[in-house]
């Protein structure tokens, strides 16, 4: 199963062009908590030999179930992962290598990426006005310009009123909070938006709206998208390409229609068969 991306024979996402994000042979091994005071805890290979590309303007989803390693992989790609017993592989963004290390050395990476997490309730500081939360990346990255104007513009883009900046997170519904989180993720003009289960806490109607918003942001801002999700339905509507993870490995990847309609790997077949449909 080495080089798991190879066997699918899928061509590079953008033909010959250099992908925006490129990962080769990424692996992470962690030590689990010890079960006895006399022996070290067992090790677990959370991610094994993952190859993944995200082309410029492309939308890629990593799909898998809990414990499949999908969140660990995406954190490793962004140098947001916890220290591992063993970390292998290389990750490049626009040709520049992503190296874990001090945050000052990663500012260029933070500048070019934005992240949205699963829970819109946990991702906003309840004691901060929404405008200040959204402006935080601008301050942290020490970007020049009129921050208030940038915040107002991005809030409008995600479909919130201009006065939203003066309000507090608790005044917003779950769906609105996820819009705020999206605003904060794109306020500094990143090239790549990364989402880890960005919609699983939302109910279906709100999910459809946020999905539409993601599509708009993608086309208006020329964003590339990398989304981690267990939701095959969502992925089928959001992604151009999908990588299926199972037990730490990418077992299959390719164009989303191809992978979901004619899955090759037994696990993908099982996964797709389990998805409830309206048909």
């Amino acid at each position, binding site marked *: 199963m080495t080089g798991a991306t190879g066997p699918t024979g899928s061509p590079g996402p953008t033909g010959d062009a250099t992908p925006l994000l490129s990962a080769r042979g990424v692996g992470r091994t962690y030590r689990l908590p010890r079960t006895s005071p006399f022996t070290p805890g067992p090790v677990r290979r959370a991610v094994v030999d993952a190859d993944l590309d995200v082309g410029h303007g492309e939308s890629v989803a990593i799909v898998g*179930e809990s414990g499949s390693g999908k969140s660990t992989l995406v954190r490793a790609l962004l140098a947001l992962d916890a220290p591992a017993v063993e970390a292998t592989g290389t990750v490049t963004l626009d040709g520049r290598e992503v190296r874990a290390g001090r945050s000052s050395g990663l500012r260029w990476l933070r500048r070019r990426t934005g992240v949205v997490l699963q829970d819109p309730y946990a991702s906003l500081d309840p004691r901060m006005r929404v405008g200040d939360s959204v402006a935080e990346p601008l301050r942290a990255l020490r970007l020049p310009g009129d921050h208030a104007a940038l915040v107002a513009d991005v809030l409008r883009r995600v479909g919130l009123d201009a006065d939203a900046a003066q309000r507090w997170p608790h005044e917003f519904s*779950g769906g609105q909070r996820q819009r705020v989180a999206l605003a904060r993720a794109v306020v500094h003009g990143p090239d790549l938006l990364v989402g880890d289960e960005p919609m699983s806490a939302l109910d279906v109607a709100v999910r459809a709206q946020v999905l539409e918003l993601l599509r708009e942001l993608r086309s208006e801002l020329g964003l590339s998208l990398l989304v981690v999700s267990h939701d095959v339905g969502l992925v089928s509507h959001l992604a151009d390409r999908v990588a299926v993870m199972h037990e730490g490995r990418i077992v299959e990847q390719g164009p989303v229609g191809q992978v979901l309609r004619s899955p090759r790997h037994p696990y993908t077949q099982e996964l797709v068969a389990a998805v*409830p449909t309206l048909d």
Partner: protein
Amino acid sequence: MTLDVHDLVVELDGRRLVDGLSFSVPDGGRVGLVGASGSGKSMTLLAVLGLVPEGAAVDGSVRLDGRELVGLPERELARVRGRLVGTVFQDPRSALDPVQRVGRQIAEPLRLHEGLGRQEARRRAVEAAREVGLPHPGAIVDAYPHQLSGGQRQRVGIATALVTRPGLVLADEPTTALDVTTQAAVLALFRRLVAEDGSSLLFVTHDLAVLAQVATHAVVLDAGRAVEQAPVEQLLRAPASETGRRLVAAARATTWSAS
């Protein structure tokens, strides 16, 4: 067992969470309550169980096989809940007692309501664990909830709800917290057990694709009212209400379709 809800009203802190709701689950019927979050579906389920939060006022009628439950003293309600109604909640982690062995929790309704002794209760717990497809049922009944996976915990929840062979099964988003393949297995289990026991089912969900797997009829809720009641297949094909149309459109925009 038939469930007849008539003109149900639940008020909490001056707000009407359920607002004159009427619907029925016929004997052996499988009905889904669908709606967005805040539409009143979970509160309806709690009202049927007589488990509304402190300070909530309930009005109207909830009849189980013709017997009125609204206004019944808590002691009698508890007996109805334990013997006649089985309930599965969304989050198997919070529904289970973390410091009690799984087998005891499965058997608790039996000990409480059928007065079974410890030996016999354990035997029935093992049997129930086997029935819901838990691995090594003879051993797993001695495990604690944290030693189980999420899917296994929800199977324990289902075993606990069904162990008394209740005439009515209530379920509130029982698969929302589960992985897709686990969800499919749990839904299949649900269908099988309800069919085998001939129980009636009232299933709360916001997910129409899940609804289509378990229910034959849908009650669409909006602001605590039923705005549409129809066979599931008809709702999906030709929703008659504005809320129904929005729900179906949202579901189509986010659900996998092979065609």
